[in-house]
């Protein structure tokens, strides 16, 4: 693997570079350490809305100019907001990357936030939320997270609550932008066909003059410990029931996180083949025709979050049936552990999944940017080594410590009669 180099500019900007010369392409990422986790009540969704406003232009790069220039160059660009961070990226032919780097430098400090554009974008964002609301599982996820986090910012959806989206002002957005978008709160990552010394010099020229400010104090409220199982019920018109069970797990930098990742592979098969049919939960729920599908989610986060398993029930099967089977499977793992074969499979799948997910420069750059914002710089380079060191005993240990009733949040999406809605 090519060496990754790290640098810090005098104004606090962290720079991560990795040369990859397999194709004449460069992926350029700017990540900011701010996301929905840092939003107080009344400002939910502000990080995501600011991300949208960043595409409305600066004086030097008016709205639409970059859309055109990047498409003309055959590149791609986009952005996304997560609970812990906001990312912007451009992947372009190597000889065209300069405009992207210059534009990201400019909008780190000079985005306009025109009041009319802000109002126009308000309805776009509400439309985005309403589009999500059309998916029944969005309502379930929103309720489950709300139940799991009473205090911490993980309690609301990244898109935000509609009441806040209607109330926030242009000045709210601009203030959020000015406080959080500065070199000391950001990381710049380049992966692709370049010479590192030349690239660093170019970055210093473009970003070195951006005003130096201390990294902002981020709004974070620690979640108090859970005092018992929590349950939520969501009722929506439809025909399909869903069951979700979540357990609290530690942050990504914690040594247990990767052990839980292996545990998840054994249970749900995620991280391996896209539809892992030998996993325990597939065998216990789908093959037995209780569920039409089962999936799990374990995402790396800055603060402790949730390990979630969600079951799509077949017609005329009940959430209670799924729950009984799921809890039996968790108990079986806790009592009897995992086999050497399962551990070996998890390792091989992790190796393969890692290889697949790092074949493009865009994905490699994302891994590196994510590592930085998670405060775990060796996340990318050391990932496979850490995962390979996990033992069967480690998996049982984390199962016993984390998959416990006291830290459990259960959500049920119960379909209601669609005909009743017509009346």
């Amino acid at each position, binding site marked *: 693997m090519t060496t990754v180099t790290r640098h810090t500019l005098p104004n606090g900007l962290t720079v991560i570079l990795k040369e990859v010369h*397999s*194709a*004449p*392409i460069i992926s350029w990422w700017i990540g900011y350490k701010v996301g929905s986790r840092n939003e107080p009540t009344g400002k939910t969704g502000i990080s995501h809305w600011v991300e949208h406003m960043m595409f409305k232009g600066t004086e030097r790069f008016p709205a*639409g100019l970059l*859309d*055109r220039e990047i*498409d*003309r*160059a*055959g*590149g*791609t660009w986009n952005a996304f907001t997560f609970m812990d961070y906001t990312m912007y990226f451009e*992947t372009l*032919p190597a000889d065209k990357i300069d405009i992207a780097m210059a534009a990201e430098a400019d909008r780190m400090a000079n985005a306009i936030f025109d009041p009319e554009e802000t*109002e*126009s*974008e308000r*309805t*776009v964002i509400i*439309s*985005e939320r*309403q*589009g999500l*609301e*059309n998916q*029944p599982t969005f309502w379930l996820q929103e309720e489950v997270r709300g139940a799991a986090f009473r205090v911490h910012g993980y309690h609301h959806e990244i898109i935000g609550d509609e009441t806040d989206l209607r109330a926030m002002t242009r000045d709210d957005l601009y203030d959020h932008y000015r406080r959080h978008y500065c070199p000391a709160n950001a990381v710049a990552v380049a992966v692709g066909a370049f010479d590192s010394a030349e690239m660093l010099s170019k970055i210093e020229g473009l970003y070195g003059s951006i005003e130096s400010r201390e990294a902002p104090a981020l709004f974070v409220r620690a979640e108090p410990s859970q005092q018992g199982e929590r349950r939520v019920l969501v009722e929506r*018109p*439809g*025909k*399909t029931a869903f069951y979700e069970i979540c357990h609290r797990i530690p942050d990504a930098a914690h040594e247990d996180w990767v052990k839980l990742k292996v545990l998840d592979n054994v249970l749900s098969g995620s991280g*391996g*083949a*896209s*539809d*892992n*049919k*030998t996993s325990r939960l597939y065998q216990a729920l*789908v*093959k037995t*025709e209780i569920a*039409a*599908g089962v999936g799990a989610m374990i995402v790396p986060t800055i603060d402790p979050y949730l390990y979630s398993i969600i079951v*799509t029930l*077949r*017609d005329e099967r009940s959430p209670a049936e799924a729950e009984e089977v799921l809890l039996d499977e968790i108990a079986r793992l806790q009592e009897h552990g995992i086999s050497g*074969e399962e551990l*070996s499979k998890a390792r091989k*799948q992790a*190796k*393969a*999944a890692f*290889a*697949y997910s790092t*074949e*493009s*420069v865009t994905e490699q750059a994302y891994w590196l940017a994510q590592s930085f914002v998670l405060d775990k710089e060796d996340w990318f380079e050391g990932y496979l080594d850490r995962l390979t060191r996990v033992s069967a005993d480690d998996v049982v240990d984390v199962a016993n410590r984390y998959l416990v009733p006291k830290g459990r949040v259960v959500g049920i999406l119960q379909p209601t009669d*669609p005909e009743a*809605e*017509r009346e």
Partner: protein
Amino acid sequence: MSAYTASIPNAGNINRVEFDNGLVLLVYENRAVESVNITASIHAGSIYERPERSGLASLVSSALLTGTQQRNFDEIHASLESIGAELSMRGHIHKLGLFGKALAEDLRPLLETASEALSYPTFPAEHVERLRGERLTWLQYSSFDTRYRASKAMRQALYPASHPYHYGTYGDEETIAAVSQADLSTFHANHVGPDGMILVIVGHVDTEDALRLVRETLGDWRNPEQAEVARADFLDAPGATERQTVFVPGKTQCDISMGALGPARAAPDYLAAQIANSVLGEFGMMGRIGKSVREEQGLAYYAYSHLGGGHGPDPWIVSAGVNPDNVEQAIDSILWEVERLVSEAVADEDLADNQSYFTGRLPLRLESNEGISSQIHAMESYNLGLNYLAEYKDMIFRISKDDVLNAAQHYLDPKNMVIAVAGPQPDASTARNTQTREK
């Protein structure tokens, strides 16, 4: 020719071999990665099924990996998952598609399993029933998905019931319930075979090794019962605007799907139509439609157009998700942009922008094994020639403003489009359009 141009897949670096059984193998070595990808297609899509068995081809594709004469369900999947490999089959309209990837060292077991599943499936009854249940759950869930419902309503109005494109590849609850195990076996026997099969292998692999492995695993496969290749008829465009409104309870947003008959991939004006589509709803932030509907009016999070371009008259689609109060304004804005596209030539700058866009994005499209496989498969499947990518830039820059205008006029007419809207109960002002034809 630059070093990069020389390195893109072309007749000189793609190894193409025709087997006696009709299989065409194309191998491209990509040493920059650790994995290998296989992409294949067989003439066994939904075009070969009867309307009362809609969804059969797709079920066959799903069921191929549930059991073979050699191995049962668990043995097949354990062999794949233990090496971190992926193998999936999917039924499309014209073809059964196969996709697989593995670490380079595991190409043999990947090909062996693919070959076994294609050649010797047993369609075990218990797994057919399980798949049926899963499919029915998916269909029930989708019946409450406004995007799915709008798209389905558009498709059914654009293509008559006598045309295979009228039907979704996943079928309906009634047709899926009626499919029998014997239907699956018969369809497999009649349609799944090596004749006309295209297999593309891309990745960290030696061409000779790949050729040998394919010869060993698929070279002896024969299916004398395999049917002739079917084609989808080309149709006349609708003679009037047709509106479809689908009520989906419990929703807050409407999805709009507007369609016209688009070009086949092999049509001489396909590339010109692609540029027209890009101007309309793709380039930059979703083209002119995105600029108007999203950026200027703030009506939608997404509003874009898409050109299918397969073996037959795939639809040219415009999609948008909007608040119910904004449906008519969004539709009017989209139709205005379609009218503009067919009535005036694009500006020189627009054409230059899009020519640069189409040619410039090639390196990104060819960065991954999947991207390379997809391009090579398309070159073979649509008879584009293996130098198509090498000549692509010249073809794009030969397209004129008149070509773009002619292509838009050939396929689009704002007065003759199918417009489907799915969402919450319409109010009185929109209800007037329900299930009506308007001149």
